[in-house]
C-alpha cells in the first residue's frame, strides 16, 4: 500500500518511533507525580515504598 513518498507501513513506523516514547514517558511521569504526592502527604521512607506499585512489570 503506497501513500506519498513512502508506504503506509513506513509512515506507521515513524509514528510509533515518536508516539511510543511520548506516550510511555507521559504515563511514566504520571506515575512519578502520583508517588511524589503520596510521599509528600506521608513523607517517610515507608510511605514511598508503600506508594510503589505492587504489580509485577510483566514484560
Amino acid at each position: 500500500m503506497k501513500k506519498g513518498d513512502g508506504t503506509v507501513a513506513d509512515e506507521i513506523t515513524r509514528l510509533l518511533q515518536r508516539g511510543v516514547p511520548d506516550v510511555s514517558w507521559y504515563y511514566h511521569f504520571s506515575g512519578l507525580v502520583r508517588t511524589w504526592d503520596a510521599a509528600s502527604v506521608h513523607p517517610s521512607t515507608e510511605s514511598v515504598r508503600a506508594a510503589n506499585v505492587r504489580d509485577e512489570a510483566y514484560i
Partner: protein
Amino acid sequence: MQHARGAYLVLINDNTISASDLLARHWNVHQNRGDIRQCVPGDFRFPAAAQERALTRFLTQSPFFFPQPTLRAGEYWEYAYVVTCNSSVKRDALLAAGSFDARFRVAEDSDLGARLSHKRFSVRYVPEAQAIHAHLPFTVADLIRRATAYGANQLAFLRKHPTLLAGGETFFGMLDHEAADEWRALLNEKKQEIESLAATLTRIDAVDFVRCFSR
C-alpha cells in the same frame, strides 16, 4: 538468590523461553573469562507473531524496552544493560553486590545494574545465548500500565541512586518541589495530545500489520 546453590546464576523472566543450548552458552562465556565481574545478557526477542501488530513490531526493532535489538556482541559499561530477562552472573559476585532489593517490584534489574556498575562490573552481551520473549499480545494499554508502574517506582529508584540525577541535568531535576512543579505543568500541557496519540496508536494496533500495511 538465597536458595540458589550453583556457582553461576541464570536470571530469566517467567515469560522467557530458552533455546535448548542456553545454559551451555552462558556457561562458556564465564569459563572463557577470568574476571568474575561481568554480567552476561543474551538475546531476548519476541516470537515471529509480534510482526502482526504495529506496537510489538516496533518493539522488536527498538531498544526502548530492552537493549538487545540494537546491541552488538561485546563488552559494555552501561548499567541499564543489566537486564535480567536472560542474563547470567557469578552467584558470589551478585551476593557481594547486595543481590536484588526486594522493595523494587519493577526496575529491580536496573537497581542491581547500578550497584554492579559501582563495583566495576562490565556487561558482556552474547547474542548466541538466545531466548524468546513470550509476551504476546502486548497492547497500548499494557504499554501505559507498564510506564505508570515504572514511573511510580522512579522516585525510590532515584533516591537510592542520586548520582543518576546528573546534578539536575535531566528532566527529573533534583527530585525537589521545583522539579515536581515542572512535571505537573508538562502533564497538564500534554494531556490531550497524549490521550489522542494513545487512541490513535490503539486503533492502528488493532489491525493485522502484515496483512494491512506491509508492501
